[in-house]
């Protein structure tokens, strides 16, 4: 049979109900006057009565949960709060001499000048200060809002004020969000390091700070080191070492990311060249100009969108990609049909003719669009950055890395899996044999060159997001692109990928030690030496096809 007393569940349930009712009553009692009186009214009551009356008002203020009160209460604890005798307004004072500038303590708005004689300071004693501190805690680290608590804990970490420790202890005991509790514990530990705490507490605090990592923690530990007792010292030193190691590791990771980011830009710029130079053996010095035309296509597409379809702006890059591919691809086919096909087998002449073309294209773009930089906007999904385990990654770089890899993968599929790719490879390996098998070699040549140029146009769309769009855009990439292709091995797409990423990462690792320019010089010299050692690049094609 059930009885009220023999199941253990009931007393607990009963207690819970009782607690609920009691707290409801208490809340009603507390809230009723608070409801009736606005925050402003309560603030006006602050100067009145005894210290204990003020403490009561402070706790009522805390119960309102108004975030504006934090600075007011801090001013009160510091003894900076004044009341204007005529109006009863509670203000903080600034300026010198007489009259002083008054600022409303609650809203932070200026309320004009007041004479020194017409204001009176709101006095505080130690018990009132304790009440104020508790109220601040209630408004911050014990606020029902998670983000308020988190930012309060962060502020206390920065302040590292030993007076916050009791408050933090209380808050930690109540906290049920892991992230916020960790932040509070870190704030407590930072504060603890400023006190004469026992060695055990000290060591525990050092552990917490060391586990947090980051430059701020390093600063706290370093500043705690001189004052620390002898037994605490080894723990702090170990903590500093641990943080430094982690920072070094993070630094390496950040450099790797920068390197990959630079490498992906190089990859984008070089991959079209890997087709025209690597597969066809045509030195296209106008390749950089194809990139530039791609960037200008983006500019034109964005302008059209801005004028006619402002709502589509976030899609502008997606629209610019096929446009740029088509424009540069068609220009590439025209160049191949018009000039390059007369120069097959004469690579040096091709180099000169395409260089001349690049001058013409640059000047043409300069005449049409002007010599100054053109503004290409970032869509919303490409601006800003995010944090990845302590590495700051900007969205535009992130998307460009993905885009470069995607272009690479698509190109690989085109070369290995489509009939066009098959024909391209056949023509480059043995033109006459391919021709005898019925492949229209001139057609394949034109398409190959168009493909390479079109990919340069795609690169231009991406580079318009991170570089200045000017007629000289392409020139900055042409030498780097050739270095990548030659380093990776001509005629090998994988070589281009590895070459681009290697050069990017090496460049970024040298930069902190040598500076950007010297790093670039080192990379160039390295490539020059490397080519002496392996004249056919990292991944050379084997066989008679490449024998001189």
């Amino acid at each position, binding site marked *: 049979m059930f009885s009220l007393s023999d199941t253990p569940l009931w007393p607990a349930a009963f207690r819970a109900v009782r607690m609920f009712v009691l707290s409801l009553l208490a809340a009603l009692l507390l809230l009723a006057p608070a409801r009736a009186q606005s925050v402003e009214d309560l603030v006006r009551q602050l100067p009145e009565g005894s210290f204990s009356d003020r403490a009561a008002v402070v706790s009522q203020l805390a119960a309102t949960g108004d975030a504006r009160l934090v600075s007011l209460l801090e001013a009160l604890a510091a003894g900076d709060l004044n009341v204007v005798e005529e109006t009863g307004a509670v203000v903080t004072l600034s300026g010198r001499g007489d009259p002083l500038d008054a600022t409303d303590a609650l809203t932070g708005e200026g309320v004009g000048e007041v004479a020194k004689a017409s204001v009176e300071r709101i006095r505080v004693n130690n018990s009132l200060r304790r009440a104020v501190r508790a109220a601040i805690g209630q408004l911050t680290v014990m606020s029902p809002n998670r983000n308020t608590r988190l930012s309060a804990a962060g502020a206390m970490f920065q302040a590292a004020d030993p007076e916050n420790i009791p408050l933090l202890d209380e808050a930690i005991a109540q906290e049920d969000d892991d992230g916020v509790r960790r932040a509070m514990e870190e704030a407590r530990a930072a504060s603890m390091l400023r006190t004469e705490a026992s060695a055990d507490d000290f060591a525990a605090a050092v552990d917490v700070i060391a586990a947090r990592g980051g430059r701020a923690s390093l600063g706290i530990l370093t500043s705690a080191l001189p004052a620390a007792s002898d037994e605490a010292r080894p723990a702090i030193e170990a903590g500093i070492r641990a943080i430094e190691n982690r920072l070094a590791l993070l630094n390496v990771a950040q450099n790797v990311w920068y390197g990959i980011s630079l490498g992906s830009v190089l990859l984008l710029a070089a991959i079209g060249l890997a087709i025209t130079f690597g597969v066809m053996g045509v030195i296209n010095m106008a390749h950089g100009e194809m990139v530039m035309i791609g960037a200008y296509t983006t500019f034109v597409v964005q302008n059209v969108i801005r004028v006619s379809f402002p709502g589509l702006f976030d899609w502008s890059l997606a629209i610019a990609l096929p446009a740029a591919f088509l424009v540069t691809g068609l220009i590439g086919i025209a160049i191949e049909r018009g000039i390059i096909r*007369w120069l097959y087998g004469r690579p040096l002449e091709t180099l000169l003719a395409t*260089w001349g073309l690049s*001058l*013409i294209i640059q*000047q043409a773009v300069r005449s049409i669009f002007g010599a100054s930089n053109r503004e290409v906007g970032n869509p919303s999904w490409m601006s800003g950055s995010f944090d990845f385990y302590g590495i700051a990654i900007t969205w535009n770089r992130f998307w460009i890395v993905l885009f470069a890899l995607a272009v690479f993968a698509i190109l690989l599929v085109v070369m290995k899996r489509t009939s066009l790719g098959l024909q391209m490879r056949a023509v480059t390996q043995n033109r006459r044999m391919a021709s005898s098998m019925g492949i229209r070699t001139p057609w394949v040549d034109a398409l190959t060159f168009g493909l390479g140029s079109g990919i340069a146009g795609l690169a231009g769309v991406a580079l318009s997001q991170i570089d200045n769009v000017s007629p000289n855009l392409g020139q900055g990439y042409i030498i780097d692109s050739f*270095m990548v292709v030659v380093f990776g091995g001509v005629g090998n797409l994988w070589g281009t990928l590895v070459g681009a990423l290697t050069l990017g990462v090496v460049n970024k690792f040298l930069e902190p030690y040598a500076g950007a320019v010297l790093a*670039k*010089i080192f990379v*160039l010299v390295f490539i020059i030496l490397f080519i002496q050692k392996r*004249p056919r690049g990292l991944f050379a094609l084997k066989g008679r096809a490449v024998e001189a």
Partner: protein
Amino acid sequence: MITQRLLNALGGKVLWVAAILLVIAVLVPASNLLLPVGHPLRVPNYMVALLGKYLTYAMLALALDLVWGYVGILSLGHGAFFALGGYAMGMYLMRQIGDRGVYANPNLPDFMVFLNWSELPWYWWGFGNFWFAMLMVMVVPGLLAFVFGWFAFRSRVTGVYLSIITQAMTYALMLSFFRNDMGFGGNNGLTDFKDILGHPVQASATRATLFAVTAIALAAALLVCSAITRSKLGKVMVAVRDAESRTRFIGYRPEYVKLFAFVVSAITAGIAGALYVPQVGIINPGEFAPANSIEVVVWTAIGGRGTLYGPIIGAVLVNYAKTWFTGAYPELWLFALGGLFVAVTLFLPKGIVGTVGDWRTRWRDRRAISAAKIAPSGTDDSSDPPKVVRARSADPAAPLGASKPQPAE
């Protein structure tokens, strides 16, 4: 007898060009200095400096022709040797400023005072001495070419690969010279020169002398290059150009042949740069720009490579066109230059000199044929037209045998 052999060794047309240069070396300064201002035949001061600049460019093109036209090395970094020679000269001229600089420091050039350097870096030592500086004008580019060529040619880096790494070389040098820490004046380079060998650089007499020296140096370089290309070594050079592997199998060492030509060419380019700097009055890292080096290639290509005197004509013509265009239609110059690149490679693969030579050959052949038709009963076999043609095409100085394309890489 000996004179006759010497003349043969140097080549007829080359001798003519050298003679013309020597005449110019006398006439231009004389007209500038002796005729009164305003005389219709007087060469104005600015024109002396301009012509002097053209001649240094011509010397650079000649240097490139020696390696490109005769050994088949397309260097896209010859501007680097030119600029290094120029910097060596510029350093001498900087040391001559002494305490007349803005900061009036007797030991340090202005830019070093500006960078708070306390003493002269070691690589500036000795540049106060003219002969040491002139030695460096030749040694620095020559040494760079030797080291670069030693590695590149021994590893058999050829064709476009070589072109690209020469471009990388000049690009790397440009980046280095742009750095202030290098101690070569960074971005601004070396300028504000006062004296050369005690004579003020700006004075018209000095300029006229510099012009004469440039013209004579160009003539001398032309003769030296001609002597090299007409020697047995020159024949091996052409063999390396046309069939490197075959030459190697016969038993020659193509890498040494290439290295020799490359070093001689670099030294010539360095001298050209040294003559360029006092006439232009400035040397800065922009001279290392890869675009400049490629422009030199087009001068050579337009004039006609493998002819030695063709590049001289090409350099002067293109640069004159550049001066005219940038004055009259500045926005059209790049169109014109780019168009020249394309047109020359498509329609004038032998350049002006080679094409004119072709026309002349064709015209002579036609005359010979018509002469043979008029006198069919002639007993002398030597006027047989095919023979004339064969003799023509066997000319060793013929630019890149028309029937034989350059070996594809």
